[in-house]
């Protein structure tokens, strides 16, 4: 028997190129469930992405109109798409390296402007595709290809960063919390302004093996055993939260959306008699 959700995918290229046990496939799977449950016509979705393993979730696998752009520029392209096609669901799915590293500036400014995009950042804590170089989210001390003696830098807290920058919806979940993640994806897609989910995901090949977790399931168990509800972190010390995955909703606020403001200005000038 075939999975009915395969109708959303480009099936001629399945199975995926993802390594066995990779979290990218879980994100793709849950995203298909979400599109199906929300009854969104894929013709009303425009997927935009950059470069990396996570960037393969929307392209080539998900079957919708797609812009597969240069490394780090997904949000810049998506902004243009949303301005011209405000009625479409413009959805970006890409990695930590892509969206928070080379594309980090686009990310914070899109949040500040509150552009009506949905962004799913697949945080596998590494540049997976290129063989495991350090990324802005790699935890301190972890050895990577480019930090063989351990990462000397602290990591970005992406959900907190995007929330502080002004996004109207922000959440963090891991690939272990499948039901929470599914609900959050729905909320993010239905929310009007800039909607962002940091999805902590396993990369057994380029990250897991460097932290003693060789299989995808090992990192999933780490997510299971070390996730902590954001609501329970008040009053907790930084040391207590080290190596924990703080999950939950970080922001949900009403702000006017960027393209709406643009259209209001246009309307003002349309009304000026010539």
């Amino acid at each position, binding site marked *: *028997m*075939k*999975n009915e*959700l*395969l109708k959303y*995918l480009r099936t001629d290229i*399945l*199975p*995926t190129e*993802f390594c*066995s*046990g*990779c*979290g*990218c*496939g*879980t994100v*793709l*799977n*849950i995203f*298909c*469930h979400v599109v199906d449950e929300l009854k969104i016509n894929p013709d009303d979705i425009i997927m935009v992405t950059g470069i990396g393993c996570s960037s393969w979730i929307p392209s080539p696998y998900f079957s919708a109109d797609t812009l597969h752009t240069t490394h780090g520029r997904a949000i810049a392209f998506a902004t243009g798409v949303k301005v011209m096609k405000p009625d479409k669901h413009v959805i970006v799915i890409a990695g930590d390296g892509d969206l928070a590293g080379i594309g980090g500036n686009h990310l914070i400014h899109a949040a500040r402007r509150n552009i009506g995009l949905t962004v799913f950042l697949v945080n596998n804590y590494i540049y997976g595709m290129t063989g495991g170089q350090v990324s802005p989210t790699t935890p301190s001390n972890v050895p990577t290809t480019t930090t063989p003696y351990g990462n000397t830098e602290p990591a970005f807290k992406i959900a907190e960063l995007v929330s502080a920058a002004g996004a109207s919806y922000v959440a963090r979940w891991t*690939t*272990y919390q*499948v*039901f929470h993640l*599914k609900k959050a994806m729905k909320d993010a897609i239905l929310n009007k302004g800039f909607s962002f989910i940091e999805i902590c995901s396993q990369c057994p090949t380029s990250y897991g093996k460097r932290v003693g977790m060789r*299989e*995808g*399931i090992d990192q*999933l*168990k780490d997510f299971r055993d070390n996730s902590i509800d954001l609501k329970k972190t008040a009053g907790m010390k930084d040391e207590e939260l080290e190596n924990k995955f703080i999950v939950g909703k970080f922001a949900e606020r009403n702000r006017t959306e960027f393209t709406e403001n643009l259209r209001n200005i246009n309307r003002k000038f349309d009304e000026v008699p010539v």
Partner: protein
Amino acid sequence: MIREKDKIEIYIDEGLCKGCDICIELCRPGVFVKSEKLNSRGYYVPVPASMNKCTGCMICELICPELAVIIKKNELVKEVV
């Protein structure tokens, strides 16, 4: 909660499975076991050996990175759960 257990069916798409064992490890009632049989890509696919233990929680279907696990519930079960 009324539920007829035999109304849940589990399918594994052997052509898609990459033998990651996530469903075997995370299914709480332990429905799956690793088979002795290799699929065409050289992976040992899981088999739902104890299908009657399935609670219909859907974790395996949602978490499978290859969309290879399908939990089929009939309408009655869907309503009650």
